[in-house]
């Protein structure tokens, strides 16, 4: 075999003064980077396979291990970066499409970092959320054109029939991650945390394991191009349905769950034979127009007797606004938009890093378009793709989203270190794997606790920020871009976002 030109990405530094050769690192590394030598009772390392997941360093009882990015430098070249060179070396060796996991990691501008929030001073009072009620409850679903009230009999009653709504106690949902791309325990933890926090998680395109039917009231069931695991019970048990057209990490690309991950349980859930590749086609083969989409939306509504909202998820692409408009007109109750930084279990690196647009611009563009056309109320907008903290979430809502989908953040809460190797199936944290030796590393009790803590912490922070702005309900912030100001942005970017520059006042 010819010598590889692809250098190690990481350097494993083992402090021999601290190493007690206890072999915890040896047992924890699914990539076999640590090797125990019984003859001289010592542990050595082979860093060529290190993915930088920090599992060994985190569990080392003496803190003997430090993982560093390799310090080898190529001659500085503004055009041919180390990454560009390594990609060519790898491709020249494999001749294949380079794969990766998680969301785009390229340094495109993160507009959230260029948007600042407002706060009340003197002329309008801020609100202390610890002393006064603060409403984060969010309703997702189609709202009527107008509301009629019935005053007869002394009581005031709502005479208008409202369409089905999802009620969220906080405007944060767990984004679609399929059973297959993540482990049973990870799915279970998400379902339990969604239930505990009064919100929803999304099955992704992998169907719903029958064990999780008890969390149906907190489940959004996805219907994707592969139609895996879609059957009457699946549609019935979920609180809402979502037709997946696209994904932020790989717009225009289908999915591929390798056969080795299709275990007995996954085969049952997805309704495919054990060991066969689960291929999701790039398009839905029955949807080639908005009219076709309308047919599927109403087929699902008919199948569930108009009892639950039906949403459509698309990737944020260049013409996202008119596409979203078409989706709303096709009868969707919820439009989910997944931005450039949305994650994935596996995608071609070149697609992940070069296709789509940032979610911030997409939210503003879609909200504007739907408002201009007078149809914003007919569907709720869920934004997805790269929300790192509560400030990102509140900015997204102020830009015009009703709620946000969080997946990468949820995985990180469960232990993910963003090594981007989900596609290898060797997740050392027990999340993106089906290997029974690795999946038990994710204790769903711990994961549920950490997820609920995250949602609680973010919700408390959102309340603090809302209070500071003098607002006592998240509904009053939606699309309220007067509370946002931009720094370091061009005129064009400010215009699309519909926000003023910092320093600009009324």
């Amino acid at each position: 075999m010819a010598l590889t030109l692809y250098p190690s990405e990481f350097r494993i530094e083992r402090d021999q003064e601290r190493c007690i050769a206890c072999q915890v690192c040896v047992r924890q590394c699914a990539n076999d980077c640590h090797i125990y030598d019984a003859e001289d009772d010592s542990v050595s390392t082979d860093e060529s396979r290190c993915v930088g997941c920090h599992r060994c360093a985190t569990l080392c009882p003496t803190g003997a291990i430090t993982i560093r990015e390799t310090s080898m430098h190529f001659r500085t070249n503004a055009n041919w970066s180390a990454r560009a060179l390594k990609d060519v070396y790898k491709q020249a060796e494999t001749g294949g499409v380079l794969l990766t996991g998680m969301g785009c990691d390229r340094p495109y501008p993160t507009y959230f970092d260029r948007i600042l929030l407002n706060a009340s001073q003197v002329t309008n009072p801020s609100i202390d959320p610890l002393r006064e009620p603060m409403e984060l409850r969010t309703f997702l679903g189609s709202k009527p054109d107008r509301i009629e009230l019935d005053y007869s009999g002394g009581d005031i009653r709502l005479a208008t029939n409202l369409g089905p709504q999802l009620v969220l106690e906080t405007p944060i949902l767990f984004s679609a991650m399929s059973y297959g791309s993540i482990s049973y325990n990870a799915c279970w933890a998400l379902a339990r945390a969604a239930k505990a926090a009064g919100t929803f998680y999304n099955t992704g395109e992998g169907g719903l394991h029958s064990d999780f039917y008890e969390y149906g009231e907190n489940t959004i069931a996805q219907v994707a191009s592969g139609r895996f695991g879609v059957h009457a019970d699946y549609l019935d048990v979920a609180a809402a349905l979502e037709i997946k057209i696209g994904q932020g990490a790989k717009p225009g690309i289908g999915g591929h769950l390798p056969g080795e991950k299709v275990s007995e349980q996954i085969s049952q859930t997805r309704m495919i034979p054990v060991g066969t590749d689960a291929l999701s086609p790039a398009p839905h083969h029955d949807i080639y127009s908005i009219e076709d989409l309308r047919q599927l939306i109403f087929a699902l509504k008919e199948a569930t007797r108009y009892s639950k909202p039906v949403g459509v998820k698309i990737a944020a692409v260049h013409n996202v606004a008119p596409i979203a408009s078409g989706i709303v007109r096709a009868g969707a109750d919820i439009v989910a938009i997944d931005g450039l930084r949305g994650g994935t279990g596996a995608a071609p690196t070149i697609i992940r890093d070069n296709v789509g647009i940032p979610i911030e611009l997409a939210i503003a563009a879609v909200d504007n378009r739907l408002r201009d056309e007078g149809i914003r109320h007919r569907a709720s907008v869920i934004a997805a793709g790269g929300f790192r903290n509560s400030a990102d979430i509140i900015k997204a809502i102020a830009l015009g989203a009703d709620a946000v989908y969080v997946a990468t953040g949820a995985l990180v809460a469960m232990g993910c270190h963003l090594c981007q190797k989900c596609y290898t199936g060797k997740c050392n944290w027990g999340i993106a794997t089906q290997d029974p030796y690795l999946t038990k590393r994710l204790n769903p009790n711990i994961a549920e606790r950490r997820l609920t803590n995250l949602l609680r912490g973010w919700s408390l922070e959102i309340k603090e920020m809302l209070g500071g702005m003098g607002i006592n309900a998240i509904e009053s912030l939606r699309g309220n871009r007067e509370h946002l100001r931009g720094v370091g942005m061009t005129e064009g970017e400010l215009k699309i976002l519909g926000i003023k520059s910092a320093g600009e006042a009324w």
Partner: protein
Amino acid sequence: MKRIHVHEEYCIGCRLCEIHCLVQHSKSKKILKAFKEEIPRAVARVSVQEHGYLSFALQCRHCEEAPCLEACITGAMHRDRKTEAVLYDEEKCVGCWMCIMVCPFGVIKRDLNSKRVASKCDLCMGEEMPVCVRNCPNEALTFEEGIGT
């Protein structure tokens, strides 16, 4: 009484319980000293059993009807009145190893560093929680009331 409960479905086989148990029962109770300087090295009273994907940490179950108590000829093995834990008294042990022979779980070991003394889990008396439980990274060991598994 509070016992150590084993949740084998979450045991990841890292053996951190063994490492911390060894340290707790070393002279210095310091991890680097216990492993690098203390000779002979202390003995862990918990051991991880593995078979295929299954693994779990096993230590003295502190049985309600403990065969080791009946077998002990000197009364070195005794039940602690306060905690109901099965403990042993090094001073009284004569090294007949009957406790090892009768233990149905095989969790009593010879302490090879001494001629007489048997080595078994003492629930880390004096600690709020046994160190194996406190240091289990995946909560595969819990310290709770009841018999448990």
